[in-house]
């Protein structure tokens, strides 16, 4: 027989769980409802695939979807090798007394506000990129992706480290006993066993890259056009929302940002489910 206090606590927790679920679902409903007038006119797909030319009455978000994809995927390309190297160092190669401090530093890096990265990027990297490639303004997909890559790599590194640390030491000792070098141990033992953790880290880092607003807003140039090369400026969905939110409430420009919201919401949801699915499938693994 449960006593009254326990029951009350149970109810309270149930209520808060229900509330947070309801808020999550409510946000989606709200965004779809607010975007409805524009969705009805053109249809979701048309909005998604159209270009952004407010003066001609085109409020499509395709350039922003392309910009988001280009910048976040490229930033993954930057961050992945960086994080893999870092995590291999902190949980594999570095001498034991160094590992703790190294990890602390990486943990510290996850907490740096993105605006700081943006500042450093705009004053150091932008002129460098402009003069090095002698093309455009230096505010482009590449610049944003480089900075974003550095920004997300600590998160990724920590995930990788955790995955590496969970590898049973018997595996590593067996590899040592067979005379495997460090690189061989990494490629043949550590990477395959830590596959799941690595995947989780990559997907969560991708989520952070897609969701970040400020770096792209400051460094990518914000042109509402599908970028043709990494040297072209581009606008991400989040930056687009930040730029358009100031427009008149009643304007179709303002309505269109709800489409962006829906796309962002759904894409992060898909990513979360993907992580769950992969986690379940790889249950046997580490």
């Amino acid at each position, binding site marked *: 027989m449960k006593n009254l206090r326990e029951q009350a606590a149970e109810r309270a927790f149930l209520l808060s769980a229900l509330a947070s679920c309801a808020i999550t679902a409510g946000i989606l409903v709200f965004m779809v409802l607010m975007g409805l007038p524009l969705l009805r006119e053109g249809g979701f797909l048309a909005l998604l695939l159209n270009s952004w030319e407010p003066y001609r009455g085109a409020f499509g978000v395709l350039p922003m979807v392309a910009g988001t994809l280009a910048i976040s995927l490229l930033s993954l390309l930057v961050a992945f090798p960086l994080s893999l190297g870092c995590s291999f160092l902190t949980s594999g190669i570095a001498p034991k007394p160094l590992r703790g401090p190294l990890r602390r530093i990486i943990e510290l890096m996850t907490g740096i506000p993105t605006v700081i990265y943006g500042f450093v990027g705009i004053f150091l990297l932008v002129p460098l990129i402009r003069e090095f490639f002698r093309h455009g303004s230096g505010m482009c997909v590449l610049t944003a992706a480089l900075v974003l890559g550095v920004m997300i790599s600590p998160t990724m590194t920590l995930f990788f480290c955790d995955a590496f640390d969970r590898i049973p030491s018997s595996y590593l000792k067996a590899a040592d006993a067979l005379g495997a070098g460090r690189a061989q141990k990494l490629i043949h033992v550590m990477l395959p066993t830590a596959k799941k953790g690595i995947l989780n880290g990559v997907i969560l880092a991708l989520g952070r890259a897609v969701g970040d607003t400020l770096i792209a807003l400051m460094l990518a140039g914000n042109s509402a056009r599908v970028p043709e090369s990494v040297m072209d400026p581009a606008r991400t969905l989040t930056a687009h929302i930040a*730029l358009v939110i100031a427009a008149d409430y009643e304007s179709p420009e303002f309505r269109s940002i709800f489409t962006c919201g829906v796309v962002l919401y759904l894409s992060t949801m898909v990513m979360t489910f993907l992580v769950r699915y992969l986690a379940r499938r790889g249950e046997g693994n580490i």
Partner: protein
Amino acid sequence: MKKVSLLQTALAVSVLVLACSPAFCGSLDTFKGEKGVLKISGGTAHIPVMKDAAQQVMAANPGIQITIAGGGSGVGIKQVGEGLVDIGNTGRKPTGDEIARYNLKLFQWAVDGVAPVVNPKNKVKKLTKTQLMDIFAGKIDNWKALGGTDRKINLYTRDEASGTREVFWEKGLDKGAISPSAHVVVSNGAMKTAVAQDPYGIGYVSVGHIDRTVAPVALDGVVPTIETVRKGTYKIARGLFSNTKGEPAGLKKKFLDFLYTPDGMKIIEKHGFIPVR
């Protein structure tokens, strides 16, 4: 030892400032006894004047607190209309629809120009209006075609809520196209930084914001300066407005009135605008 002396100087200066500021601000007497918070947001061209005026008012009357935010003209109208701020600034005249919807009262306190600007290192400092339109439409995309270096032209424009953009687009580009490949920045200040950083960029800012970090471009032979805007020879001009929801009263009214006093006008002039008399 050095530390102490520095602190002492700082203290002395602040005491001096505090002691003197009420003395030369006769127009600030009306604020005596006023208390409360005044929130201002909107147009980014207005910010230097607003800041300066607010500082003087607050220094003379410690009971008054004035906050100033940017966001652009669209934000100014939206926030004042929704009652989020007391004064919403716009770098364009609010539309009839906006005035009716929110019952706005307009106060134009300055005339300002919107000028195309380039990096001071750029050799091209003269354009015809047709050239300007072609540049922003993306038809001319290399400085070489205009007598400059052989580099791509980087266009900078403002966001959807900007009054500066609206005025420039209407009067500078005759509502012509702005290439979608243009970079978008979010304030007059950010535009200045962007063009000051980019030797191959061209953008546009409020004439009051032009300093030595950016160079104005003469349009059809007329250099955009306070003088040419005042005389009316430079055509891309607009009013700077502060708007309230309904008839202003109390602190709101006093602050707006202050902008029309000789001291207020001095501030407006100091920041490169032409006060409305």
